[in-house]
């Protein structure tokens, strides 16, 4: 009897356990990560996604300083998939302004003007703007009036989300500008392209130009007026500045010059209420957020909140060696990597910085003597003039935010008033309608007055104001800010034999290279993964 009772208990017990466990679910969700419906259920969720879209220009991933990269695929988080450092490599390393001592993968191919479609740095550089655009599209899909209303967000919160859409469209256009400038044509996606949908299509350079210009003009009325939005966000000033820059290069991008439009938009910025700050050096120091009146847009970088090896921390470390702590404000020694060629330094008549304060080459140890300027061995950091423009030192002498002294507080100015003055002057000299040469001369002299410590000793006359002078002045004013390659291409000097600098084309005395290097190749892995895309001429 006991046995029988036991049997039934056991039998039903086993069965009930078996059945009971069936109730367990296989639909499991992460504890901390949020599904989209949760993300967009609060205004704070929208703001954090917006921060990520901006942050695509500041951070390489979701964990500072490194560890959760946005872009994987075996690429290096600091040097290959961030925005500031990889963009700097593309714009500065192929030119007279910079040369690197390291032998990381293909990094030498930049200065040698011999990059190929297999280049991992270019793989990352292609991926970063496209990633930022993908984020922007995701936000635009989820922030339509209907979507916001469906999440029950109303009133001021809803209005704030609505106005942020124009900023996101600006950022999307800005990232497309990077694609247009570096690679010419681009993968083209808008908010209509959903994740996992059909393969994206290609857009040609001229079409992309029209798209970017169209987008920027379309959001003009929605963006905040100049200087009315929080620091770190974009307003009309950024939009005008980007339009001015794009129109200046329109002939390169589309074959048709648009200097008239460049003058219009440069003038809008110049008239927008910005002002040159008294000290050139302070524009690139750890507390340069104080100089925001000269910036249309700067990417804020902070030693505690925006740690990374791919933003301005890179500038202060890579440009320094054992002088890092003393002269660059970073502890622990420099990275012994980047310095200029004599091509850049020779733009300055006085290389000491004693007259033109922008000549920030000499340090206590590294002179600008002919022997220091000479680079016999690319991999020897001791050879070549060191650049002390980006320093993690505050103008007020206070300590920087990161108590370890490692990560930089230097914000990265994307557009400065000086660039707008020089765009106005160049577009005017190139015959743009509406330009005024007297104004142009005045603008250039404003820049030079600041450079010469507020004195008139650097002033030029109308006779001095030539296109070559403007190119050189752009070199002096904007070096190491990510303009040089674009400038040399506009002047037809990047690949030709007209202007040679040390180690151009991999030869100590410099040499001309194939004109295909005016564009970067579409990375082979990108072509492999998307058959809709085509390679740039001359590359395979």
């Amino acid at each position: 009897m006991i046995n029988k009772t036991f049997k039934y208990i056991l039998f039903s017990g086993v069965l009930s356990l078996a059945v009971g466990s069936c109730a367990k679910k296989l639909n499991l969700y992460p504890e901390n990560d949020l599904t989209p419906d949760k993300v967009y259920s609060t205004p704070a969720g929208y703001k954090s996604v917006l921060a990520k879209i901006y942050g695509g220009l500041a951070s390489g991933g979701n964990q500072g300083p490194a560890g959760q990269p946005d872009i994987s695929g075996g690429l290096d988080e600091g040097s290959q998939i961030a925005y500031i450092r990889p963009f700097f490599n593309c714009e500065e390393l192929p030119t007279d302004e910079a040369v690197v001592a390291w032998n990381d993968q293909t990094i030498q191919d930049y200065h040698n003007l011999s990059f190929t479609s297999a280049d991992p740095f270019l793989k990352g550089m292609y991926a970063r703007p496209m990633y930022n655009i993908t984020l922007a599209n995701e936000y635009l899909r989820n922030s339509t009036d209907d979507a916001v209303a469906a999440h029950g967000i109303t009133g001021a919160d809803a209005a704030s989300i609505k106005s942020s859409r124009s900023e996101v469209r600006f950022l999307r256009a800005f990232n497309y500008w990077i694609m247009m400038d570096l690679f010419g044509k681009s993968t083209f996606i808008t908010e209509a392209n959903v994740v996992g949908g059909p393969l994206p299509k290609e857009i040609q350079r001229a079409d992309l130009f029209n798209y970017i210009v169209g987008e920027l003009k379309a959001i003009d009325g929605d963006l905040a007026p100049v200087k009315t939005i929080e620091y770190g966000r974009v307003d009309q000033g950024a939009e005008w500045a980007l339009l001015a820059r794009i129109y200046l290069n329109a002939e390169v991008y589309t074959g048709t010059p648009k200097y008239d439009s460049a003058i219009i938009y440069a003038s809008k910025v110049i008239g927008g209420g910005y002002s040159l700050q008294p000290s050139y050096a302070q524009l690139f120091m750890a507390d340069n957020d104080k100089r925001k009146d000269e910036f249309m847009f700067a990417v804020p970088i902070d030693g505690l909140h925006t740690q990374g090896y791919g933003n301005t921390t890179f500038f202060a470390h890579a440009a320094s060696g054992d002088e890092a702590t003393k002269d660059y404000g970073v502890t622990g020694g420099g990275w012994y990597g980047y310095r200029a060629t004599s091509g850049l330094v020779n733009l300055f008549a006085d290389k000491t910085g004693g007259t033109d304060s922008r000549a920030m080459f000499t340090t206590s140890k590294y002179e600008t003597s002919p022997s220091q300027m000479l680079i016999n061995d690319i991999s020897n950091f001791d050879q070549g003039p060191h650049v002390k423009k980006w320093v993690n030192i505050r103008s007020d002498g206070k300590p920087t935010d990161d108590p370890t002294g490692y990560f930089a507080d230097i914000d990265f100015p994307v557009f400065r008033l000086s660039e707008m003055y020089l765009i106005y002057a160049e577009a005017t000299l190139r015959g743009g309608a509406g330009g005024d040469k007297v104004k142009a001369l005045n603008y250039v002299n404003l820049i030079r007055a600041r450079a010469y410590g507020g004195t008139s000793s650097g002033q030029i006359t109308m006779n001095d104001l030539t296109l070559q002078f403007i190119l050189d002045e752009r070199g002096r004013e904007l070096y190491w800010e990510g303009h040089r390659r674009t400038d040399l291409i506009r002047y037809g000097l990047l690949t030709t034999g007209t202007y040679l600098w040390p180690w151009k084309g991999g030869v100590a005395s410099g040499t001309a290279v194939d004109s295909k290097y005016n564009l970067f190749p579409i990375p082979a892995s990108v072509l492999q993964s998307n058959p809709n895309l085509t390679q740039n001429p001359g590359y395979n």
Partner: protein
Amino acid sequence: MRKSISKMSKQIGVLIFFILVAFGANAQNTVTGKVTDSKTGNGIPGVTVTVKGTKTATQTDASGNFSIAASPTSTLVFTSAGYTPKDVAVASQSFLNVSMEVSAEKLNEVVVVAYGTRRKQDLTSAITSVSSKDFQKGFIPSSEQLLQGKVAGLQITSGGGAAGGGSTIRIRGGASLNASNDPLIVIDGVPVDNNNLPGSANLLNTINPNDIESMSVLKDASATALYGSRASNGVIIVTTKKGTKGKVRFNFNTNLSIGAIDKEVKVLSADEIRNIINTNAAATGNNTFKKLLGAANTNWQDQIYQKAFGNDNNLSASGSIKNIPFRVSLGYLNQDGILKTDHFDRYSSSLNLSPDFFDNHLSINLNVKYSSTNNRFADQGAVGSAVAFDPTQPVYDATHGSRWGGYYEWLQPGTTLPIDLASRNPLALLELRHNTSSVNRLIGNVQLDYKLHFFPDLHLQANIGIDDDRGSGNDNRDSIMATDYKTFGRYSYYKQSKQNTIYEFSLFYTKNIESIKSHVDVLLLHGYQDFLTNVYNYPSFGQNGDTIANSVPTHPNKGINGQLPADKPEYRLESYLGRLNYSYDNRYFLTASVRRDASSKFSPATRIGYFPAVSVAWKLNEDFFRTSTVIRELKLRGSWGITGQQDIGGTGGSFNPIYPYLPVYSYSNSAAEYQFGSVYYNYLRPGAYDPNIKWETTTTSNIGLDFGFLNNRISGSLDFYDKKTKDLLSPVNQAPGQNFDITIVTNIGNLESKGFEFVLNTTPVKTKNLSWDFGFNVAYNNVKITNLGPQVNSIPQSNISGGTGNQIGIFAVGYAPYTFNVYQQIYDSKTGKPIEGLYEDRNRDGTVSAADEYYYKKPAPDILLGVNTQLNYKKWSLGLAAHGSFGNYLYNNYNSNNGVLRIIKNPINVIGNASVNYLTTGFANNQYLSDYYIENASFLRLDNINIGYNLGKVFKNSSLRLNANVQNVFVITKYSGLDPENSDPHGVDNNIYPRPRIFSLGANLDF
């Protein structure tokens, strides 16, 4: 009742036989006798007695007695499963006393298979079982190393010589590219999660090897498909020792060991460095480095290594109390590593109860294993630092006092601050860092088997188990350490735990149908397994008490100061399984099974997978060599099956391998935020995902032959297999703009491997006092990628040290995974030395570019070899065990990174030490991608020499055995690096933690 029927029928049979004999065989004498076991002296029932050359046969009765008609000139053949057959001439004897010996290889040996056991001779699939007596000997802290060299096609490669360190285990080379290639490990019916826990060097070191009874290695799909979705890389079933009925017996064993470094890395001496620097300074006129030279002669490797002591003690008791069989054990192991400060110890205990109730209708098997391990991890960076640190500098530097603990460090000129990018003092790395952890693991399960009272052929079974792991640790770097001086040291605490549970319920039906000579058993099973990890977050502190900025968890769920987990990744499997075993006449065997798994890792549309398998075996000996004494066993096996893989790897990016199909956003940490005005906002980032991701599946075919000749003094097996994996879970390039990353893991591509395995065990000598066993196994495996999807031919792999982002290997269609992709070095025809920077322009386009790289060799071996031999003479025994690997290549990253002038004259203005390889090449700069550094790393290692002496009875009812061991005796190789045996699947050798040579003494007392 059944028992009595069979007894009666046997008696009737004997009676009929006697009648037949009495009436029919008058020309012959009746020979009677008794067959006994040579050891016990007990009669053996059921022995077949045949008159040689005739069909006359009988069987012994329950007491071992027999009677048979045979002429005086004939010879009787005695055969019985499990015993060595014996021929006895009748001659004039009328009563034969025949003593039979248990055969060397017991045919009745039972092997643990998936969800049950089988007689070894009935196996239909490729399974190798190794029992405790055949385990690798010596001082072995981690259980997988017991199998080293013992199983054909099983590769066990320890990560190095770290105390308590783990191994990479590969069965037939693995079946995946990016997904895990680790086999599934099942401990007493609980499939365990083999992913490590922070604080554990190796989760397998939490199991005491002394508690293990046997390990079965399941290789083909038929054997493994019962584990369905996790079985593609093979399965290792670990079975621990059980209680036995009878008197309580005790066992105590102890082992003392001492380990020492076998071989140091060859680096330049202080004088050689001084000579190089001085010569170079004289030639260039640049005295920068000359000024940095020191006057000391320091061998940094001597500074960091030590003699390592270990001891291992185990006490167990087994027997039964009140008819409940039990076994309990306690173990304590204590081991130093040869790297100073490296230490591991383990307290372990286990309990097994296996009572039966209700006339054996309900049997319960309860297993509980609990262990507590403590680690002090030595900073293994010291290994690399010791070979790279300037030998002209002293260990201690009095000039800056105790600022850096008194240790010499490279300082920025004119300051007392260290140079960040310089190597750190190797000894300081060890002595100033205190990195300790403890891991507690409980594996427990209860298995119920209820044989229905009203239908005893049917069993109801349940298996409920838990694997609970808790790891925590403190990683403390002193504020005087040059590595973390900026934050005044770094004090970190971490904690993580896992609770993996299993519920399985099954119906098991078994039936002998004697009328059709058939045996059938059927298993139906339904189960759940749940894998839960609890991640706790804690900030790190400086010694001054300040929180270190980017260590602060910023997620809204911070886990409330570690009281609650901050994250709980979890996945779950639901399974149904059916299996049929059928055998006919002990000759033909069939196993068919199908498993249905559903995994929470995949979307509802793709989460269900079916994994069928079928296998057959034919005992040729039963059909053709039934009476042969030469051929005792000859069995042909064939199997086919499909297994799955769901252990998805990450991409390094935002793709989440636990929830790969879900679109989810994750928060950034406090050091990745964007500033709006004066407020910093952390990011919410959408992760890359693939809504269509599903199982990777492997189809395996296997043909095998098991044989045993000459009384099984020669036995072995031969297997051929073919594995094809499709829908590989691989990192796949995504078109930029198509997903939230340019790489996700999804199903793409195919991999194929083919191979064979041959095992031979022999007993060349077997006499009363002397026996010699010799065995070896050899496995050949050839793996290649056959497809990487429609648009991709190759994917670069294998990051190396030096530069940033350099990669040396590739996944390429038509080649083995991680094949090296390198430039072809050009050599000076006179000196034979490689010419720096000069490579073959293989495509003859006039320039050497990435297009000139070529695929050259691979890290995976072609052939694995294991050799074992044992010599017994009276009470002495001598054993040797060796294993080897052939056709495997390594990239000597140490030479490529450290064999250059640039490492001596480091551009960051410090002096370093170089590999002696620099004296050969004379390279000024690194030539990372040269094929010069790809070296043949084939090797043969003598793992172990073991000498044993059995004292026998030392006092009443107790016996004692003593043994002495040498492990890691020698290695034969052409490889120029420290050790050719490397667990890195990429084949990149950066100098592992050296494997020590260990001497040990052991005693084993049964009482």
